[in-house]
């Protein structure tokens, strides 16, 4: 897939003191839902601002839609929708007046703009309070106005900074569903930054993990999970558990089998043997007097992979500086 966003050696140093983004080389494939993951203060928002041309890089380049992004790249941003964290709106504006204003800044003529506004207001479920001033809205309602505003120009690329922050579970689920729909059904490229692993795991196809401004991993989410998937599967079984454990230990490629309070954890040696080992495990379950209640392969693996990657990156020490030539 072609890259819709490309950064090369992207660096941002504030006031010659704080390295917010550190030599970032990243590609966001077109049509992907790209999760940009990192702990608080890792440089996610700064990276997003660099991608949008809101701040100037200290070094490196940002290319969006094949063109360099700058402060005045209004034509590029015409194809982008941006949802900031906790979006701010002018005082004394209603969702309709605000969306109308934003639509005008995009140069959308009224015959297209008005129907689009009504469609978006309905889509984000703000029909009931579309005449109220935004300053009276809750966090969830404000986020929905922000979502509507970032979709008004029907962008090809959506950039969302912590879109579920501060939302209740219903709001979060709704936002997650929307992101999934935008990416999978509408075919838009979505770049989402978050520190909530469960959200990223749920809807992203690709992932970039950043720590202290440095990209420690980028690739498909399945590749990230393989990093931990090589080790374990967890099974909740009922019946002759001890018999199952004894037979499982004899399966070639199984390095250890441990019994926990509810789960049996099976450690697998070689990721290449993963499928074969699983087939053997399930055959033992089928032939033995054991019921499989639940199976978990890497459902928590993203969190573990994330932590492992951060720890591994940190452990490289001085070698982190030797990544490529000057």
């Amino acid at each position, binding site marked *: 897939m072609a890259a819709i966003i490309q950064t090369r050696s992207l660096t941002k140093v504030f006031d010659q003191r704080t390295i917010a983004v550190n030599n970032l080389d990243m590609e966001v494939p077109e049509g992907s839902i790209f999760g940009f993951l990192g702990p608080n203060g890792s440089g996610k928002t700064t990276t997003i*601002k660099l991608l949008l041309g*809101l701040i*100037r890089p200290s070094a490196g380049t940002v290319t969006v839609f094949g063109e360099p992004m700058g402060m005045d790249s209004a034509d590029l941003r*015409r194809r982008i929708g941006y949802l900031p964290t906790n979006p*701010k*709106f*002018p*005082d004394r504006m209603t969702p309709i007046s605000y969306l109308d204003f934003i639509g005008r*800044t995009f140069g959308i003529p009224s015959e297209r703009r008005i129907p689009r506004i009504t469609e978006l207001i309905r889509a984000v479920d703000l029909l009931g309070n579309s005449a109220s001033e935004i300053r009276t809205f809750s966090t969830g309602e404000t986020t929905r106005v922000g979502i509507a505003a970032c979709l008004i120009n029907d962008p090809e690329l959506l950039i969302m900074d912590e879109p579920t922050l501060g939302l209740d579970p219903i709001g979060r689920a709704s936002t997650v569903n929307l992101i999934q729909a935008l990416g999978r059904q509408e075919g838009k490229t979505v770049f989402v930054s978050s520190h909530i692993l469960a959200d990223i795991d749920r809807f992203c196809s690709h992932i970039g993990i950043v720590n202290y401004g440095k990209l420690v991993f980028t690739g498909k989410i399945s590749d990230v999970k393989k990093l931990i998937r090589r080790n374990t599967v967890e099974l909740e079984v009922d019946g002759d558990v001890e018999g199952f454990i004894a037979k499982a230990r004899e399966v070639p490629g199984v390095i250890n089998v441990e019994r926990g309070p509810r789960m049996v954890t099976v450690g697998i040696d070689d990721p290449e043997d993963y499928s074969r080992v699983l087939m053997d495990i399930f055959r033992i379950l089928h032939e033995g007097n054991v019921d499989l209640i639940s199976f978990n392969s890497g459902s928590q693996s993203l969190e573990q992979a994330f932590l492992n990657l951060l720890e591994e990156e940190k452990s490289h020490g001085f070698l982190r500086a030797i990544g490529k030539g000057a």
Partner: protein
Amino acid sequence: MGSYAPSGRALDGLRTALERSVLLTLTLHEIKLGFKNNLQRAWMGTIAFFGLLFLLAMRDLGSIYAIGIFFGLFGSMVAVVLASNTISGEVGGIADSLLSKAVRRWEYLLSKFISQIALGLMVYFLMTGIAVLVLWNFDWFPDDMSYHNLGVIIGLLALVLVFFSSLGVMVSSTASRPVFAFLVSIVVWFMFVVLFLFMQDWDFMYSPAQIITHLDTIQDNQWHVDWARLVGFYVLSPLLFFFVSLLAFYQRDL
């Protein structure tokens, strides 16, 4: 119908071009929001109150002078203070949101300058216009008064507002926080007032203090103004402030 069609199309084309102008959209938006601003409304109420007071107390041309001087002294401070929050109060929030859309930095900046100047002038001309109408209606103007010179006086004091409004926007574009912008705008306003009061004989400009002290002589055609000097200062100053703002704002990380 045949003669309407070309002009109708031209009007539609103009409407479309205006609709698509980002600068015009931003400017009109700022002006609308400006009139909803509580401080702006308080200022308009204050002017209306004092304007009425001057009219009823003086019932002659002096009330126009009083309103003009009131604008020149207090209006200039209000203009600077109101303008000082226009950019600094939005950076990190609304400005980020706007500039992440199809808006160029110079468009955003220029819209702030134009809208703040327009707001100040609209309020000023509205108040003085009402005062002139009232005086004219009740025949309180002197018989030998020159309406042309009255227009010149009103226009000269308007230039003072243009100066201070654009100064406030420049401060706003360079200050890192709204509170700094507010404080700096007050200090800068005071500094210019002192400068204008004590240095009235500069060769390259007419200070507001000079204009205010010559209102009678302007009305009587006794004060000969070097228009080039006048316009030069009051047109070039806002342009200079805009240029400085442009330089500063393009260096600024949002």
